[in-house]
């Protein structure tokens, strides 16, 4: 029985105790904490209550409910209950259906995840068990490329020293591998099932939390305690890579896992339009209350002055004789009558329009990425229109801007540039060089597939230029690459940094093939002959040194120091005799950097035996130190890396993703600021910034913010706040997204406006009208055309919106829908409603029908106004629709037709015969709409309402045309001419003098190499305890892990976790 004990220690940290030993001896697997996850919200029974509860928490629905309750009070009720009930039920049903479908899919995916299988140690046997049945304390076996089922404490793995590699893409989006390693005491367990089964350690650790990069705990086993940190933990959602198997003990399962702790609590994201709408709705509500108060006061006065005398015809109940009380009741009645002023149905329309837009995004062939066969996918419908208002883009670098493929492009050896000729050809080759035949140098055919194929260099090699040899030797020797032979006997390089990979591969292609290494030797094949160098020292890379060196003894017995690193650093270390070469090489470096290439300087030094021996002695002494070890070692490195002889420089291209430059240019033209978040070096980031046109030479204030912790970054950001800032983004087809945004934005915005004003008009006029009209107006008569417009409208076609990225700016500045616009719409709405009321009012005063009958009854008045309203609104929408598709036609004409058919139906004899009390308008439409004067009134109302709008719009386009207007005009003109596909010329930045040094390297691998820890023993299995223990053997791994995570953790904190 695994027990979980909670205790509070003095630091107020919760510790959770898992006692494994008990669990296995009793063969009772823990019941409390299983690995079953639920991302779903409801089940069949809880759906209705929970969903309804959630829905009524929304202001809109609560408001409806409040109205409904008000309407049930007979003294107040001015409309029958169904006027509120029908829309409320409609909205709630729609939302409920949507929620139910969403939850159904969550259930499905939960089931799928919970039923995955993994191997669990049960009864001293490995058995397949469903994920959901994995319990805390279980020992799980993972195989290569498997997903991790729960948060595990790594016990042992197939790799030496209990190392294992994981990919955390699901957690933080990082695609590079991370190293985890088991405690040495547990890694000894290996794959020994019987020993693992007897494992009875106790883990005391932190309570479940969502910090992906932190873990603290203690393992007590065999009377000793071992501290645990994040490096011993494999989190759920990771994938095991390059490790054939590993064993781990479940520490957190199911909802306790860090992955699940990070998900679930999804906040509802509100767009700025949502927020604005909320504000406006509140204002409108305030307006409604004001109207109610004014009308109530008016009512009181009227009751007092006039109504009082009218009592003979209409008795009042005793309590209502008071005119103030009557005013109070009237207030509530007006709140009910005018409730439609508050555009609650707008929220629903917005949802529908967003849904429509997300479908358009998903359907768009221009956003389809053929290489991976993935169409665009709008994962959430809530944020669509926000796409049109983006001001900042935060981008990852690797994989987003760059393909993370490094190619060796150029080099400068001893003052000569090589690799220039093939620039354009080189871009087209995409072959990975790892697959190239090893005997590249003797196989001239391979030239064509090689990105770097300057025949002059091949000539030099053939001629035996010693400087070139030395240069290539540096590339082949000074690195941390590991070699491996695959089953086909081909040489495979395992690179820790792609830069190095590119350099080593280049050397290999040019005949200096790195073959293998041990902790003391490096074997390379120099133009066909195997040469083994003795590795005497490895001067590792770090962020401060910005260089790396190896000291080797060649077969001839000479000791050489080979060094590569940042030009700025290395040039300071050169021997004074290098001055001429230095000037030449510096020019070359600027040229490389100008092309956006990442550069490294290459140098060597001959050492004499005696000097080296002394130095080495000092180094060993320094390494043995406990205090100030790092400082001493660094000093010694400085000491030996001087008087270097310059060989040249390399230039590696960090290949950009396709279309990045165009996209970035477009985005910056659209005034979108781009921030790049990267774990890379500053230099790399700047380099990429220049390479993809994000940074240009005319930018004065380039700020690079670097910091290893969130606090540091915040501090840095504060410093940079007032200044401009750098950089870039895109994904492979990012630019296409952009064009859509423009379209969406506009349509949504305009929809909102129309909806608003339709409702405002509505509210003003309804006091006199038929309750059915109130009920149906929003739903049927005008919502569909508005929706159609919102979904289908395009103000500018896609080609033009691509060509004029400036179109994007109004969206950012919120010019299309803001408070000012809203008030203009309000004013327009008020004007329209006044016209709608007073023109019929004046006309109906003292009027008679053409048969002498009375047409000024309130029912005819209502029909006239409603018909005018529908026609005015339809004409208005028709004017707002700039893009008339079939669907728009159908919806606009359709809604007018629907109005008339519903009108005639509701006024028909048949329906009156069945419900005489509900449909008292019998015969009204027939009679009223047969009158000429009524049509004259409708016509006049329409003209009077629409003309000012047209005039206003015309003057606006004429006086201060928006960019979209100009483009539309041009678009029309272009239609006659054959539309030519204009493409902005691809601008390549001209160079400026600036270092292009960049190197994606991490510290610590040198130590790994010299210690020999990551070298697989030729004879497996690695028997535990047999390998020779080097001094401070654990510290290097911890160092390594610490340093690895340092650079990446700073931003991963904020990353959202995809489930």
């Amino acid at each position, binding site marked *: 029985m695994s027990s979980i004990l909670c205790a509070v220690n003095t630091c107020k940290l919760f510790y959770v105790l898992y006692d494994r030993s008990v669990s296995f001896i009793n063969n009772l697997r823990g019941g409390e904490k299983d690995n079953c996850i639920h991302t779903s919200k409801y089940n069949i029974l809880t759906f209705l209550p929970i969903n309804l509860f959630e829905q009524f928490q929304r202001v809109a629905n609560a408001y409806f409910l409040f109205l409904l309750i008000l309407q049930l009070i007979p003294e107040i009720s001015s409309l029958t209950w169904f006027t509120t009930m029908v829309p409320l039920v409609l909205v709630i049903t729609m939302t409920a259906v949507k929620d139910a479908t969403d939850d159904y899919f969550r259930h499905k995916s939960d089931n799928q995840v919970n039923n995955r299988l993994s191997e669990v140690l049960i009864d001293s046997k490995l058995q397949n068990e469903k994920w959901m049945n994995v319990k805390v304390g279980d020992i799980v076996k993972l195989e290569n490329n498997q997903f991790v089922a729960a948060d595990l404490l790594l016990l042992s793995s197939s790799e030496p020293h209990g190392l294992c590699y994981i990919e955390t893409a699901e957690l933080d989006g990082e695609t590079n591998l991370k190293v985890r390693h088991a405690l040495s005491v547990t890694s000894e367990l290996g794959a020994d099932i019987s020993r693992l089964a007897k494992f009875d350690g106790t883990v005391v650790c932190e309570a479940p939390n969502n910090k992906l990069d932190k873990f603290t705990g203690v393992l007590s086993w065999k009377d000793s305690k071992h501290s645990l940190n994040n490096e011993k933990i494999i989190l759920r959602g990771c994938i095991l890579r390059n490790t054939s198997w590993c064993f781990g003990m479940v520490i957190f399962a199911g909802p306790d896992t860090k992955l699940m702790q990070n998900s679930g609590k999804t906040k509802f994201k509100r767009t700025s339009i949502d927020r604005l709408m909320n504000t406006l709705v509140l204002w409108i509500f305030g307006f409604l209350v004001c109207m109610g108060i004014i009308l109530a006061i008016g009512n009181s006065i009227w009751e007092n002055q006039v109504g009082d005398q009218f009592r003979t015809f209409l008795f009042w109940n005793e309590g209502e004789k008071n005119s103030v009380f009557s005013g109070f009741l009237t207030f509530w009645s007006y709140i009910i009558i005018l409730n439609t002023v508050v555009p609650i149905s707008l929220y629903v329309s917005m949802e529908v329009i967003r849904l429509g837009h997300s479908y358009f995004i998903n359907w768009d062939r221009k956003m389809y990425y053929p290489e991976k066969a993935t169409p665009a996918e709008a994962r959430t419908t809530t944020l669509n229109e926000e796409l049109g208002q983006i001001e900042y883009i935060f981008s990852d670098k690797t994989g987003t801007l760059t393909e993370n493929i490094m190619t060796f492009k150029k080099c400068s050896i001893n003052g000569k540039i090589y690799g220039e000729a093939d620039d354009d050809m080189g871009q087209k080759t995409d072959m990975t060089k790892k697959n190239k035949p090893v005997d590249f140098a003797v196989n001239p055919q391979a030239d064509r597939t090689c990105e770097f194929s300057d025949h002059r260099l091949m000539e030099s090699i053939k001629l035996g230029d010693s400087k070139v040899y030395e240069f290539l030797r540096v590339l082949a020797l000074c690195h941390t690459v590991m070699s491996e032979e695959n089953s086909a006997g081909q040489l495979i390089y395992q690179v820790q940094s792609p830069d190095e990979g590119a350099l080593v591969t280049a050397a290999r292609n040019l005949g200096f093939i790195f073959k293998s290494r041990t902790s003391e030797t490096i074997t390379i094949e120099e133009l066909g002959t195997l040469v083994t160098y003795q590795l005497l020292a490895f001067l590792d890379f770090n962020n401060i040194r910005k260089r790396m060196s190896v000291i080797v003894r060649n077969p001839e017995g000479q000791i050489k120091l080979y060094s590569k690193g940042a030009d700025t650093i290395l040039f300071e270390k050169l021997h004074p005799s290098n001055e001429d070469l230095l000037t030449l090489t510096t020019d070359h470096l600027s040229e490389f950097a100008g092309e956006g290439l990442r550069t490294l300087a290459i140098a060597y030094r001959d050492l004499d035996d005696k000097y080296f021996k002394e130095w080495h002695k000092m180094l060993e002494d320094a390494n043995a130190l406990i205090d100030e070890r790092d400082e001493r070692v660094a000093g010694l490195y400085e000491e030996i890396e001087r008087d270097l002889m310059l060989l040249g420089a390399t230039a590696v291209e960090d290949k950009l993703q396709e279309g990045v430059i165009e996209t970035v240019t477009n985005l910056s033209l659209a005034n979108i600021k781009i921030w790049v978040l990267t774990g890379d070096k500053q230099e790399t980031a700047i380099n990429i910034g220049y390479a993809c046109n994000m940074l240009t030479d005319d930018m004065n204030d380039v700020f690079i913010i670097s910091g290893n912790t969130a606090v540091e970054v915040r501090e840095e950001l504060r410093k940079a706040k007032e200044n401009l800032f750098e950089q870039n983004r895109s994904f492979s087809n990012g630019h296409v997204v952009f064009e859509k945004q423009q379209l969406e934005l506009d349509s949504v915005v305009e929809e909102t406006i129309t909806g608003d004003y339709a409702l405002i008009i509505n509210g003003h006029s309804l006091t006199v009208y038929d309750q059915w009209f109130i009920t149906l107006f929003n739903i049927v008569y005008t919502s569909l055309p508005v929706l159609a417009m919102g979904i289908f409208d395009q103000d500018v076609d896609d080609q033009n919106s691509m060509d004029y990225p400036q179109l994007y700016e109004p969206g950012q500045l919120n010019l299309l829908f803001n408070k000012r616009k809203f008030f203009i719409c309000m004013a327009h709405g008020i004007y329209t409603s006044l016209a709608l009321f007073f023109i019929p009012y004046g006309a109906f005063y003292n009027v008679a029908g053409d048969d002498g*009958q009375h047409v000024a009854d309130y029912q005819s008045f209502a029909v006239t106004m409603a018909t005018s309203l529908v026609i005015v609104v339809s004409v208005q929408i028709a004017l707002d629709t700039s893009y008339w598709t079939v669907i728009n036609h159908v919806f606009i004409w359709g809604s007018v037709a629907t109005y008339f058919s519903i009108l005639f139906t509701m006024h028909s004899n048949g329906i009156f015969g069945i419900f005489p009390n509900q449909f008292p308008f019998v015969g009204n439409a027939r009679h009223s709409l047969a009158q000429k*004067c009524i049509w004259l009134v409708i016509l006049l109302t329409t003209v009077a309402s629409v003309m000012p709008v047209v005039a206003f719009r015309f003057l606006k386009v004429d006086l201060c045309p928006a960019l979209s207007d100009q483009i539309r005009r041009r678009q029309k003109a272009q239609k006659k001419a054959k539309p030519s596909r204009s493409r902005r010329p691809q601008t390549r930045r001209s160079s400026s003098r600036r270092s292009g040094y960049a190197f994606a390297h991490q510290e610590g691998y040198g130590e790994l190499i010299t210690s020999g820890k990551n070298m697989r023993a030729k004879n497996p299995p690695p028997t535990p305890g047999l390998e020779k223990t080097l001094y401070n053997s654990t510290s290097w791994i911890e160092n390594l892990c610490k340093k690895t995570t340092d650079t990446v953790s700073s931003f991963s904190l904020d990353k959202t976790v995809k489930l």
Partner: protein
Amino acid sequence: MKKTSQICQSKLPDNTALKQQQLPAYRLQLSATGVLSGFFATGAFCLGVGIILILSAKSIKEIEIKYTKICANCAELREDAINFDKECTCSIPFYLSETMQGNVYLYYKLYGFYQNLYRYILSRSNSQLVGTDLKDVGNCAPFSKSHNGTPIAPCGAIANSIFNDTIILSYNLNSSIHMEVPMLRSGITWWTDKYVKFRNPSAINLSSAFTGTAKPPYWSKPVYELDLEDTENNGFLNDDFIVWMRTAAFPTFKKLYRRLNRVQYFIEGLPAGNYSFNITYNFPVTRFKGEKSVVLSTLTWSGGSSLFLGLAYTVTGAVTWLAAFSMMAIHLMLKEKRTLFIER
């Protein structure tokens, strides 16, 4: 390879016009010429209609006589409900200087009577009036039931407050011959009202059909005695009752009372001469500070329209033209500016 391409194919969104937002569409463009000519055309149309309406409204002959003050003694009598059974008649002589050609309609008109009051409008029972359920007085408060609890028929405030003056127009051919002008009661209601909305309960005898109901408190006689001579005008089918029940939109309204029967002297219409209205004054208006009048009017093609519509059309037309001219001026000015700018 083939398989993957098929998968690609399946994931590739359909190339339909709808999904790719390539539906053939017409782009609405507010071009200068379009807008301006539209404005001019609309303006011209409105002006034309306006002038026609004004002219036709002018051609209408209308006589209105307010008789609240003329019949002051009757008005005073009706001030107090106690005198409800005392009859009061009032004769209003007037001179028609011009012949009223064609159809002439007689209206009564009320000032300050709020027939559009919300509670008033609701105070009726359509299911009772259609004869299906006499007992349904649900919405009729405060006139749903009499003191002893029997349902009122017709119930409700509207029915209770029916206009109950009798207006008779007599033509004084000369000082000795006074003849009643022949008037038609038929055709003053909407067809749907008379034949659909209002129905008497089905029974052999109308009075038996209404047994178990009470008359409205303000009425002098029960509903089945409204017109004992004509069964088609009795009960809920009474034309005056139906006209009253179609509630007016504004506190000042006129309702059709009778129309001229064009026979004998009156084939051409109402000839010029001396007339008098003989009014049985029942309907109290001074209680709510209202007024009432009788109206004689002819019609035009558009009905009995007032000047308002014509004026409104004329004004709209004029404003539209004004706007069109100023818009044109602005547009031309800007155009000039633009071309100048380009030339420079």
